[in-house]
């Protein structure tokens, strides 16, 4: 496998940077994904989703604030900032306040192991994939804290549903990712990506190099929808039954933080699925004869471009599904998880193991 000589150089250089005792570089490394989440949630996450949903329903979406409504999200953020910070009287104040924080930290911590291109990764852990799957479980705590702390029946129901859903769907999701880890032979995010790099572009991706990977790919994609509470698995916030689910009582900036966490985890699962099966930051373009398209579109900056584009593509699919499918019932959700996805992920696991042994 081709290996870029500049692997992790940017993040390594940054982590060494410090002013006196103050590790400035580490702060910058943490700030880069944070700024990225904020910007992407503001533009693509909220504005894009509103526009995409509008176009899918033959509407126009926001049109009034700025050209084609481009400043609409900014106006919304300003509105949220001005709002009073309300904590309900009967709420458990401690849980109510830390709930959104834990939620956001849970989705943000996973960004530590997402490689934004060959030269930049927050922490190139040798257990990166495992860490990403594990740390997301922190979100469950945040959701339960928010739902329980609100002291509201809608919020509690939403939280209970959400926790049941996320805990259940982590099983097929983890087994599906295990298939990718088996194909790569490593858990390091950078190494998994490197295994899928090559002059053939997309032909080296796990999804196309073997006949089984589409099954764990689909299973992980479906489970990731459930883990991020996206439609059709949005029963935790089912607005027609539960008002807004676990964040019914939240308003102002706490509400914004919950939304940020949600969009953060949307990108996180999209990035994980692109790393595990679609080559992460590698370019999809193959070298055709003398035309070195792959070589031309590789490198640290191109890598960041490709992984963000792949992430955005999956977020688009998530939005597309949201505006297509009706919400599942709780029993249907559990049926899908335990009776369909889990057995199939085990089958995929065995088939992948057989494939890996024979190649």
């Amino acid at each position, binding site marked *: 496998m081709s290996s870029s000589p500049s692997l992790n150089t940017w993040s390594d250089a940054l982590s060494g940077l410090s002013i006196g005792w103050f590790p400035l570089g580490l702060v910058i490394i943490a700030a880069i994904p944070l700024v990225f989440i904020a910007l992407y949630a503001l533009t693509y996450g909220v504005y894009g989703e509103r526009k*995409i949903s*509008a*176009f*899918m*329903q*033959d*509407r*126009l979406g926001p*049109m009034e604030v700025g050209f084609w409504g481009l400043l609409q999200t900014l106006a919304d953020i300003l509105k949220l900032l001005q709002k009073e910070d309300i904590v309900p009287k009967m709420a458990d104040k401690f849980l109510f306040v830390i709930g959104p924080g834990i939620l956001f930290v849970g989705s943000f911590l996973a960004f530590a192991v997402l490689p934004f291109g060959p030269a930049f990764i927050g922490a190139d852990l040798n257990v990166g994939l495992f860490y990403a799957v594990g740390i997301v479980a922190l979100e469950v705590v945040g959701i339960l804290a928010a739902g329980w702390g609100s002291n509201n029946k809608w919020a509690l129901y939403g939280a209970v549903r959400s926790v049941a859903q996320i805990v259940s769907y982590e099983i097929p999701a983890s087994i599906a990712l295990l298939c990718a880890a088996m194909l790569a032979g490593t858990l390091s995010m950078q190494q998994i990506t490197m295994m899928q790099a090559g002059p053939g572009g997309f032909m080296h991706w796990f999804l196309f190099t073997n006949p089984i990977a589409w099954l764990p790919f689909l299973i992980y994609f479906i489970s990731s929808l459930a883990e991020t509470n996206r439609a059709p698995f949005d029963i935790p916030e089912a607005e027609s039954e539960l008002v807004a689910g676990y964040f019914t009582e939240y308003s102002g900036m706490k509400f914004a933080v919950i939304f940020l966490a949600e969009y953060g985890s949307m990108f996180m699962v999209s990035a994980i699925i692109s790393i595990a099966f679609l080559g992460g930051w590698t370019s999809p373009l193959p070298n055709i004869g003398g035309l070195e398209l792959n070589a031309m579109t590789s490198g640290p900056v191109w890598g960041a471009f490709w992984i963000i584009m792949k992430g955005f593509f999956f977020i688009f699919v998530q939005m*597309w*599904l949201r*505006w*297509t*499918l009706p919400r599942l019932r709780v029993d249907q959700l559990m049926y899908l998880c335990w*009776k*369909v996805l889990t057995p199939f992920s085990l089958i995929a696991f065995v088939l992948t193991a057989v494939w890996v042994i024979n190649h």
Partner: protein
Amino acid sequence: MSEYFSNIKTSATTIATGMAITLKHFFNAVKRKGDAGIDDADYFRQVDGLCTLQYPREAVPTPPHGRYRLYCHIDDCIGCRQCERACPVECITIDTIKATNDDLAACGKTSGGQQKRMWVPVFDIDIAKCMTCGICVSVCPTECLYHTPVADFSEFDVKNMLYHFGNLSKIEAEAKRKKLAEQQVQAAKEKAAAGDAPAAKPAPKPKPAAPPQE
């Protein structure tokens, strides 16, 4: 077991169908839906494209016979106050002054040729209260009260929703009122001066005023 797999197959195909439909709509969003009306032959064929109208800038025209905002054509109003009594929400306020005999010509006739005998200095419609029920329209003897096709008449200040249709300014109304009062005083004086025997003499005076009210 076969049901299990057929369920999976059905869900996969239905999801694919649904996603194809939404994607088709997504890519059709570059087009606008045609503006063929319900009477046009291809009305039901225009299914592709955006259907949003950005309201203040573009709107479906209200039909010419639409009944929305209430309007009073005050030139035809004879001040009979039937609409005021008929209105279920009491949104019409009318004040009338009887026209003196020498003013009858100035008071004019309705477009139907009926002699008007009342000045209507105040004809206020509180359009914020009006519920466009149309009862006032049906009782109006001269058909001077009707709904217009104007549908958008929102205001920032609710006070602006009070529409004034009266045909006299305040000063004019005051003058007319004074004139009438003077004439009545005059009539009363004449009546008193006439004493008791020729009391029948001025009596017919107001009488002719009554019959035209029919």
